[in-house]
């Protein structure tokens, strides 16, 4: 029979391809020529199986717009001073508009002209005489604001990628999601808290002068203008403890971390405590030299994300662009701080929208239990089929085993991720794969009862059951495809194995078993059918 040969070749090709795709996942030693010529990818395990952390962060991109506006205010002030346009105040209001107060409206046209020429990113909103002078309101152009937001997200992504690379995670997956979200997958992470601290830290480093003579415990309303109170973490070397306190600082930021070129952990030889040594680029070094020179004998505070870590007294002008942050660090904290300073600050703070962490022990447990239920379930089904359909059951079991091989190979070939629900999907397919054979076999039994010969019953059984099998599976396939489209991680994994499983089971149950039967009837001249 000619068709027999071609079907046999087709099945052989599929089987060989499946084995080739599956071998790398089985941890068997492969010959050297394999790599590079044949598929080399293992089945990828989901975070719920190998353990790890799944994070969705949102970049507070509006904060980046606010920061830009604040920086703009300083620049506007400078330009207005140069242009000799007197102003009372320039502030950012709740709506994110720039409000410029002038003593009177006499220079309004000049103001508008200067703003439009020097600051093309802002546009004039309104201006009006007020009881005590003149008020102009400007805002950032929508296009510019959108650009800043976009930039903030892409910069945050880059910075986080840098930090994670330096932290050392194997095969991290970091990608943008939607407009301002970042999806991070860190397989096999051991210390999720530490990883999260490292990723989530804004890491804005600032140098500010201490407001000397101001008691940080005074009522905030009574503080002098341009002074604010900040929390302080101070390490007391004599007791070896960290003291939480308060300190009053001047508002003006003299230097930020953006000029840092390098940061490393060093050990203080005197107290044997770690500290972080910083190196500035030439521009930063010049600024640092100037501010230390201008403020000798004054206290310079070093802030990280609004918390003061140390506030040493400047002994002399420091040139060469080196500084250090001492403070109450453990070795680990100092190392992580050095990483975030090297990788740079986030352009805007991030918040965690979603976190799913699975410990390695639970992941291993899930794999073990998942495979145990798969093996037990398969054995039960295999035995049942043999008991119920005897020899034909054996043929269905061959198809079933081939089916599992095809699903696994499919996962490796499509580089799909195997999740715990994915294993459930395989288990479900094992149950459903014999469905098709049960349908065919029941039909054959029926036809034989009606007096047909085994071969005729076989042909009729396959012919009549095939369409029903297709129908029954297509609806499940539709559900699986929709799940794939809308599902997240684990659910997607389920949808993938279910879809591959359905297609594989159609192939094995209809094509493979039919071939075996045909071979037996045609080539081996089988006369009876054990079913």
């Amino acid at each position: 029979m000619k068709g027999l040969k071609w079907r046999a070749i087709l099945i052989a090709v599929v089987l060989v391809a499946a084995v080739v795709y599956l071998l790398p996942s089985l941890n068997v030693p492969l010959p050297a020529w394999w790599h590079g010529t044949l598929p080399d990818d293992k089945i990828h395990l989901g975070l719920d199986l190998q353990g790890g952390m799944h994070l969705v962060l949102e970049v507070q991109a509006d904060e980046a717009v606010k920061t830009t506006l604040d920086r703009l205010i300083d620049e506007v002030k400078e330009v207005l001073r140069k242009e000799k346009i007197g102003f009372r105040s320039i502030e950012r209001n709740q709506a994110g508009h720039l409000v410029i107060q002038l003593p009177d409206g006499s220079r309004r046209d000049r103001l508008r002209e200067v703003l439009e020429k020097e600051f093309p990113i802002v546009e004039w909103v309104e201006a009006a005489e007020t009881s005590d002078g003149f008020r102009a309101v400007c805002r950032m152009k929508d296009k510019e604001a959108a650009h800043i937001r976009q930039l903030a997200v892409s910069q945050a992504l880059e910075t986080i990628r840098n930090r994670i690379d330096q932290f050392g995670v194997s095969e991290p997956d970091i990608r943008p999601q939607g407009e301002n979200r970042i999806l991070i997958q860190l397989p096999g992470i051991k210390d999720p808290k530490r990883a999260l601290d490292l990723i989530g830290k804004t890491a804005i480093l600032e140098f500010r002068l201490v407001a000397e003579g101001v008691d940080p415990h005074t009522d905030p309303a009574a503080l002098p203008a341009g002074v604010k109170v900040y929390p302080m973490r101070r390490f007391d070397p004599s007791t070896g403890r960290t003291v939480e306190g308060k300190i009053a600082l001047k508002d003006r930021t003299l230097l930020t971390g953006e000029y840092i070129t390098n940061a490393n952990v060093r050990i203080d030889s005197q107290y044997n405590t770690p500290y972080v040594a910083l190196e500035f680029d030439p521009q930063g070094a010049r600024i640092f030299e100037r501010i230390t020179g201008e403020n000798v004998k004054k206290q310079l505070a070093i802030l990280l994300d609004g918390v003061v870590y140390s506030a040493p007294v400047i002994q002399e002008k420091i040139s060469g662009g080196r500084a250090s942050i001492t403070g109450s660090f453990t070795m680990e904290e100092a190392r992580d701080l050095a990483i975030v300073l090297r990788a740079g600050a986030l352009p805007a703070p991030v918040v965690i929208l979603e976190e799913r962490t699975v410990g390695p022990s639970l992941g291993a447990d899930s794999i073990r239990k998942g495979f145990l239920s798969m093996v037990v379930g398969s054995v039960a089904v295999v035995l049942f089929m043999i008991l119920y359909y005897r020899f034909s059951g054996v043929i269905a079991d061959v198809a079933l085993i081939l089916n599992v091989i095809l699903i696994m190979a499919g996962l490796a070939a499509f580089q799909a991720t195997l999740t715990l629900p994915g294993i459930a999907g395989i288990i479900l397919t094992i149950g459903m794969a014999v469905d098709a054979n049960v349908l065919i076999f029941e039909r054959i039994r029926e036809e034989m009862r009606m007096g047909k010969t085994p071969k005729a019953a076989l042909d009729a059984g396959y012919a009549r059951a095939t369409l029903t099998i297709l129908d029954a599976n297509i609806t499940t396939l539709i559900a699986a495809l929709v799940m794939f489209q809308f599902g997240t991680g684990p659910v997607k994994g389920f949808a993938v194995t279910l879809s591959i499983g359905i297609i594989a089971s159609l192939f094995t149950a209809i094509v493979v078993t039919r071939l075996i039967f045909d071979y037996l009837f045609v080539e081996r001249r089988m006369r009876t059918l054990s079913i």
Partner: protein
Amino acid sequence: MEFIRPDININFVGMRGKAVSFSVLLILLGALAIVWRGGLNMGVDFSGGTLIQVKFSQATTPDAIRDALKDLGIGRSAIQQVGSGSDNEFIVRSDISEEKAKRVSDDIQARLDQAYGPGKTTILRVEMVGPKVGQDLRQKALLAIYYALLFIALYISGRFELKWGTSGVMAAALLLGVYLLGLTGLSMTYLIIGALVITLVLCWILKLPYALGAVVALIHDVFITVGIFALLNKEFNLTIVAALLTIVGYSLNDTIIVYDRIRENLRGSRKGDLKDLINRSINQTLSRTLLTSGTTLLVVLFLFLLGGTVIHDFAFALLVGIIVGTYSSIFIASPLLIFYEDWAAAKGIAKRRA
């Protein structure tokens, strides 16, 4: 070997009244449970919050854990033992989903270290979903259910009746109806209900009794499964939705097998009572229906028993869904054809009189 004798003849059709009453009762019970509990027990996926699975090195009780976490405002109902007793594993839920750098799980770990001693507790799993993502996931889940129902309704309306032209009309009408519904700005839940109603009405108007029966059976299966989850106060999360969609796909499986046989028998003999023919078809396919569901049920049962805590509820949903799906294809889907036929006949007589 044979479980079901070939000459079996159970009067399933005769039991249709009782079966429908039973189903309606089950659905009502589920609906009551939902109302009673003030909605489904939404997991952190949909409601937002934090779920933590902790393993203790010694035996402990939910009360002791609650005491240790007292100042975090975690109630007793939020602490639940999972796995076997000797595992000492608990799941702790909190409504809070800290979006700042500080994690609820760190707070909980710190409190547990204090109460049980450092290193005595291990956090196995953390699931934190912020309100924004919770809302997104809810929307996604509803969309998934919606599209699955839409596509499956379209497929069966065409396939069952082998009238693809009618199916085209159906598709166009359904899409138009859903589009118009969408314009009203109703929430997704109402859109789904609306789409279902439109589907049923269209099946009715276009005289597609098989599609009508299949869609009703499908809704029946999902409602009962959801109702049982509400009755047992089990948590409803993303994987449960996946299980529901699988049930939708799978429960049609058996229905299709019976319907195919009914149509086959109809082609054979146009004469005779429809009730007898349907009953004969159910009996002829009974062995297949029970065996195919049986093998699937068998493997899912092992998944339920051996699969571990993470997959437990998912396997449970599948288990319930497969049982209900098999029941509905025998007792609900086929008798519906009779109800439809009776209605059509009554209408036919009425027409003749007029």
